C-alpha cells in the first residue's frame, strides 16, 4: 500500500470536471484508490464521495493506493492532481 499527501492545484479544486476525470482514471487502474481528507476516506471510483470531500484549490488530500500497479498508479494520479 502506498500513501501520499498531495496538494490539489486545479482552479476549482476537485470539483466536477477534475473529479470526473479522477474517477475515470481510477476505473482504469488495477489498483484500488482511496482519497482521504480530515479523516474521511472515500473510494476513488465514487464521484459523489470525492465531491463530498469538498477539496478546494490549494488543499491537501491523502491518496491511498493498493494493488499490483500501485507505483505507476500513484504516478498518474499525482500527475492529474498537480495539473493547474
Amino acid at each position: 500500500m502506498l500513501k501520499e499527501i498531495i496538494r490539489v492545484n486545479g482552479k476549482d479544486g476537485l470539483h466536477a470536471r477534475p473529479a470526473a476525470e479522477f474517477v475515470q482514471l481510477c476505473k482504469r487502474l488495477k489498483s484500488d484508490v482511496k482519497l482521504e481528507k480530515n479523516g474521511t476516506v472515500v473510494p476513488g471510483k465514487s464521484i459523489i464521495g470525492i465531491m463530498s470531500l469538498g477539496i478546494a484549490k490549494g488543499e491537501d488530500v491523502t491518496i491511498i493506493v493498493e494493488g499490483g500497479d500501485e507505483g505507476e498508479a500513484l504516478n498518474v494520479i499525482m500527475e492529474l492532481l498537480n495539473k493547474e
Partner: protein
Amino acid sequence: MLNILGKKAEKLIIYKPVKGKVIDLSEVPDAVFSERLMGDGAAIEPEGNEVAAPCDGKVLLVPKTLHAIALEAENGVELLIHIGIDTVELGGQGFTCHVNAGDPVRRGDKLISFDREAIGREGKALTTPIVITNAEEKNIEIVKLGTDNSDVLMELAVKG
C-alpha cells in the same frame, strides 16, 4: 432469498425535479455533462424556480455553493442534480437549500430554490442536468426518457 443468476431488474422512476422540456445530455453546453463524464442521464430546461426530490431517498451531498444536490434512492441509485451551467462560479448566490446531507426525502419534497433573474443576470443558463453517478457499479440502464409534458424524467432498470 439469494437468486443472483435469475435476478430481475428493478424498475425505478425518476420524476422531473422541476417542470420543463427534456433535453438530451449531449446537447448540454458543458462537456462534463455532454460527454457523460459525470454519468448518463438527461437534462431539463426548467420552467419553475424550485427543485424537488425526483424520487424517495436520502440527501448525500449539498456543496457549499448550493447549485447542486446528490441523492441516493432507496435501491442505491445515486443521482446528481446540477442546477444551471457553470453555476459553481456564483458561489451560492441565487440559491437557497432547504435540506442537509443525511436528510431522508420523499418524492416532491422541496430541495433547492433558485432565483431565475439573479442567475440570468450573471449570464448563466438554467439548463439542469440530472445524472446517475453510479450506473456502472449498480448496472443501471436508462430504459426510456420522459416527454416534455410528462412528470417523468426517466425510467431506470437497476440490475445490480
